[in-house]
């Protein structure tokens, strides 16, 4: 049953997946198994995205399905199972003045399925919030997202503030967004630019040494 559920989710069979999950619960299956199936399916979806078989529509549907499964099992869940040690910690957000979220959300999703602990600060994130989150969560990696060309200067201000707070040496900074490129990474003082979510995962993995 679990294998069928994983397959249904990974193959985007939404109705089938929800029906199967309900049947499993009704048959007395441990709710944790449903969640495990969800995570396994997300890993497959992530792989298919990296292999360019899946794109944004499938990540959106996969994310929706995971939420629906979580809502389904929540009433029957006793305690959260201990997760394995994460591959690393990432603080992520769209810089101040910019309210675009789709690119950032895809990166968040892909880091999550690759076992990173992701602190997504949302959109229009002030310099102060980034600095505070770096202090609080002690990430190895900071991801700055921006869709507007205005974000070049805002990212630069954000990196400068991280420097001024004495935190620059503790984090690697990556930037992304449709208007970004390698020159933008240099301009803003980041360590690298990632053209898509797969690249973001590769960068984060390379910086955390696959911990």
């Amino acid at each position: 049953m679990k294998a069928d559920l994983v397959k249904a989710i990974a193959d985007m069979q939404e109705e089938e997946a929800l029906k199967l999950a309900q049947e499993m619960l009704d048959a007395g299956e441990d709710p944790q198994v449903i969640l495990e199936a969800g995570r396994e399916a997300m890993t497959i979806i992530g792989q298919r995205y990296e292999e360019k078989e899946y794109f944004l529509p499938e990540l959106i549907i996969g994310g929706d399905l995971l939420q629906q499964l979580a809502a389904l099992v929540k009433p029957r869940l006793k305690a959260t199972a201990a997760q394995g040690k994460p591959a690393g910690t990432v603080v992520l957000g769209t810089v101040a003045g910019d309210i675009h979220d789709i690119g950032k959300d895809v990166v968040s999703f892909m880091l999550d399925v690759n076992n990173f602990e992701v602190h997504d600060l949302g959109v229009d994130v002030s310099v102060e919030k980034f600095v505070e989150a770096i202090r609080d969560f002690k990430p190895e990696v900071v991801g700055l997202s921006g869709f507007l060309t205005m974000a070049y200067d805002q990212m630069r201000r954000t990196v400068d503030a991280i420097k001024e707070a004495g935190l620059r040496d503790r984090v690697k900074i990556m930037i992304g967004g449709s208007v970004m490129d390698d020159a933008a990474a240099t301009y803003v003082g980041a360590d690298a630019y990632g053209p898509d979510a797969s690249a973001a995962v590769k960068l984060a993995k390379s910086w955390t040494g696959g911990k």
Partner: protein
Amino acid sequence: MSEKSPEELYKERQARILAAAACRQPDQIPVLGPFQKYPYQFAGMTLRQAMNDYPAARAACHKFLDYFQPDADFGPIFAYPAPAMETIGWKTFKWPGHGLGDDVMYQYLDGEYMTADEYDEFIFDPSGFMFSKWTPRQFSALQGFGQLPPWRRFMWTGWMNIGAIGGPEMQESFRLLTKFAGELNEWWAHQAKYWGEMTEKGYPLAFAAWDWPPFDILGDTLRGTRNVLADMRRRPGKLHDALEVTTKIFEEYGSGAVGAPLPFTWTWVHKSTREFMSDAQFKEFYWPYLRKGLVTLIDKGITPIVYWEADWESRLEHIADIPYGKIVYHLSNTNFERAWDVLGGKVCLMGNVPNTMLLGGTPDDVKAYCKRIIDYTKGKPGLIMDAAIMLDEAKPENLKAMFDFTREYSASR
């Protein structure tokens, strides 16, 4: 020293741009672009000021025009009318002084403004849906429109059933709508005044109509990005039916360019970059409808300028399937050389000096980039020079280098 009259300069610029757009040899490579927020930055003004003080916005655009001398100009069209937007209560948009800082570019709030079960209603009667459902969701001042009966029932004695229009909420909506229209017309009067002034100086208007691809009409303001993308899998049949409708809307929008001195319909492409959908999805849901609409416009004598936002390298072969010499493709992050290999000499390419270079580079960097892409065209016509992305910020000396170098270098070849 040139002693040409403004009229002669106008004709020269118009001919130059039309030649390049049709992949014919111009006297020199034209340079123009949708310089969005940049003219106000250049004039030392915030976007908030430009959106509220129309004479000041006009003055800023003149300053920009006189200094850079683009071959065609947009004028103050990108400084949207903030007072009118306040009056109508545009809920799904943020702009300087309305949710954003004084000099931050305005942005749309992506969301679901047509639910999945409203597809049929939209397909049956798009205007009815837009009036009574979409309008109140977009504009807080027009809540009364939710009570508007479908106008299709107005026929014969159907008019006897429209008493709702007399209600207080509807009356208030009409009052605010009238106020809004007055404020909007004041803004348009300044636009028109500028167009007259720039024509007198010898510059043609760079646009005649704006448009959005059939898929984006649904995705941008109706279903929202996430939903429209998921709809390709969840309800492909409905999506196709709705795309038939929005293709007609696309053709209607873009047709306004017929007969203009520069008959350009700027088509802003948002939702189909390589990250957003697979090639198969692009070929099924996006390109056939957009292509059909573009060909309809071309058949009317219009030259569409398609603004391919983001990176299109992987789809160049698909979008090469279009009548040659009749359309302009504006590139932003697409590799120019690769695009020229596929499209050069067939489709006029516009762009794509990196904005990061215009902001953070030097005049020499900019000249080297412009030289590189001009040299790559090997003298074949069909290039219009511009920044890669609608320009908001740059160092003036870098932008000046783009204009001056391109002209001098291409005229000398």
